[in-house]
């Protein structure tokens, strides 16, 4: 899979997806849980806004000094006995990995979840060399064996499926005969995938953060698959987007604290694994060879643009978990491996307006995403900027632009819209009861009343809400 996951036009995609009741129920359920988990974890830590400030300033400092830290990082990896490939394009990255795989006569590869390897279309390149590639993250594995179904969420990629569908896929593809209990399904995969870990010649992972001062990479997971992928195969290849680094362990602390809470609502995930170079000569397990592939693939263009702040992103998906548009149309509607607000901003930048011009319209500009982003990316503003850029470039006639987009479509179906608002209100009530109020569906309703393309007020959501309260706004 490369970045683009669908050939259908956006309008068609959402029409189909909006009628998929299983998907809509699954996404709504997931969104509510993830939203609640994140909010509780942030509350438990306290001073969350200060933490976000720390996160944003670390990310900005890294972006400002990216060349310096990339030199330091790569020097350290070499010093530790590893290999480094700087890849300007997706093709350069995959060609390098292909070459390593050939050198190693690799016949099988285990992968742990990585967005950037999806982005560069690595699996197809390996597979056309006759190499068996096994995705070992449970969600990714479900999608892989379901004839490469597209991911619908950047953290929990198979969230659009329910247990019965997963049971059916396992039965069809793997001869599974058990129940639809998540526990039994999970155990089955555990047993089934073990052999691949033991046999694999190469383990391929992404990289949540590289640490420049020591030449290490940090992997943040729950399942243990990244550990297996990097303990058993003799070669480990880590692939990272070039901006995914921190200067020292001190900043890693802050970033990991923000990421784990924002992504899954935990102080730390099950495994935070920090890997430095290949294994030492006197150790038995661990890779004998370590390769770090640093990928630009359009990122330096973003760095020089007014969209620069999107490179702060740490891929937590909190924005998607908050987004009413995402809730309605589901992740696959975006037609990109990057879905939700982050996907709507990033996909046109990395993949071009031609393929992703509709995504900036999959947004009601309610700005709820701005308020949850752990590194304070002004997502809604960037989406508006996309619209501006496209308008200036006269990419499509204005009328056309106003009639495409998720919300315009929903507008034509009042029933669906009312239904969604009701579900949204239910979710919001729960959040109020849990003592954390970040998102009010009225924002959407208000937008809904205008029906036209709204202007951002450049007012933060909470300010808006506070003002509304002061003006005697209702509490429902």
């Amino acid at each position: 899979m490369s970045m683009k996951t669908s050939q259908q036009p956006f309008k068609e995609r959402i029409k189909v997806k909006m009628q998929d009741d299983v998907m809509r129920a699954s996404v709504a359920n997931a969104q509510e849980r993830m939203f609640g988990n994140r909010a509780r974890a942030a509350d438990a830590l306290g001073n969350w806004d200060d933490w976000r400030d720390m996160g944003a300033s670390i990310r900005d400092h890294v972006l400002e000094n990216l060349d310096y830290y990339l030199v330091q990082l790569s020097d350290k990896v070499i010093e530790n006995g590893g290999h480094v490939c700087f890849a300007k394009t997706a093709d350069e990255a995959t060609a390098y990995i292909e070459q390593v795989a050939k050198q190693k006569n690799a016949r099988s590869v285990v992968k742990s979840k990585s967005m950037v390897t999806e982005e560069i279309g690595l699996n197809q390149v390996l597979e056309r060399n006759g190499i068996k590639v096994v995705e070992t993250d449970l969600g990714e594995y479900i999608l892989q064996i379901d004839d490469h179904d597209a991911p619908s969420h950047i953290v929990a990629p198979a969230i659009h499926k329910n247990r019965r569908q997963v049971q059916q896929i396992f039965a069809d593809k793997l001869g599974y005969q058990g129940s639809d209990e998540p526990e039994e399904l999970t155990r089955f995969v555990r047993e089934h995938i073990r052999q691949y870990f033991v046999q694999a010649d190469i383990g391929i992972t992404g990289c949540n953060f590289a640490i420049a001062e020591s030449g290490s990479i940090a992997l943040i997971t729950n399942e243990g698959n990244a550990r297996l992928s990097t303990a058993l195969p003799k070669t480990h290849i880590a692939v990272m987007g070039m901006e995914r680094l921190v200067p020292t362990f001190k900043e890693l602390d802050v970033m990991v604290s923000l990421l784990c809470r924002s992504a899954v609502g935990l102080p730390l995930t099950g495994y935070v694994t920090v890997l430095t170079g290949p294994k030492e000569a006197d150790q038995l397990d661990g890779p004998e060879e370590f390769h770090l592939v640093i990928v630009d693939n359009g990122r330096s263009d973003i760095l020089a643009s007014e969209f620069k702040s999107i490179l702060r992103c740490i891929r937590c998906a909190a924005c998607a978990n908050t987004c009413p548009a995402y809730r309605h149309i589901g992740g696959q509607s975006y037609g990109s491996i990057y879905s939700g607000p982050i996907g709507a901003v990033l996909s046109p930048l990395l993949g071009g307006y031609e393929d992703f011009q509709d995504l900036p319209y999959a947004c009601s500009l309610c700005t709820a995403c701005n308020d949850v982003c752990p590194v304070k990316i002004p997502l809604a503003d960037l989406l508006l900027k996309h619209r501006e850029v496209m308008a200036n470039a006269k990419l499509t006639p204005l009328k056309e632009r106003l009639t495409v987009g998720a919300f315009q479509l929903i507008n034509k179906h009042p029933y669906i819209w009312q239904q969604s608002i009701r579900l949204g209100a239910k979710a919001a009530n729960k959040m109020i009861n849990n003592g954390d109020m970040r998102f009010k569906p009225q924002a959407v309703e208000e937008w809904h009343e205008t029906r036209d393309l709204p202007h951002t007020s450049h007012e933060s959501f909470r300010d808006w809400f506070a003002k509304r309260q002061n003006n005697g706004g209702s509490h429902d």
Partner: protein
Amino acid sequence: MTDSSRLQGRDAFLTALTQKLGRPTAAAPTAFYLPQQRQREVFQEYSLEQLKQHFVDYSRQNLGAKVIETTFDTLPQVIEQDALERFDEDSISLLIGTDARFPNSGAFAALDSRIQVKEWQPEEIREQQIACAEQAQIGVVFAECALVESGTIMLKSSKAQGRSISLLPTHSIFVIQQSDLLPRITQACERLHEQATQGHRLPSCVNFISGPSSTADIELIKVVGVHGPISATYVILTDQ
């Protein structure tokens, strides 16, 4: 700055990057200060006893780990009991690291005859040791330190304690010295930072492990036990 056989494409990559940044390659980073230091405030006022209590409660309630407090002398018996409670079989295979902080191997040789104790043998053949870990039901390792906030065990890979011991067996036993309880990942990262600052290469694998492995990929329902261990016991040595 030239590319060696192990370094590819850096010069061209950086030239393109600095062009975008509109400046020559930086010789030093700009000054950086965190606007806040909130990470240092967490559990600052806690006594050691309070830290331990939080660690125990969180690990039990949130991670589903079993937590036992004991002393150094009774460690072998505690491990024996945990093994027998967990596995109702005639032969239980237990793999243990040879970290110097463990009691000497004689202490484990005298365990119940149903328990087959094997030590991690770094001089042996890699595949054999990995297979041994694969077949073991229990892996026992000594923790570097533990993080109170998140119920986390920190492990460093070493000759004496391979990565597989805490990864392949279905059940993990982590042994922790009470004096190694740290408030949160902040303090552990500080130690790693110090090591890096002094120019030492870090161990090839440092793991922060919070309970058994888990997933929520199906309907967002938490299932404990995926690719890593299915259960975990934390043993705190209160006299260490």
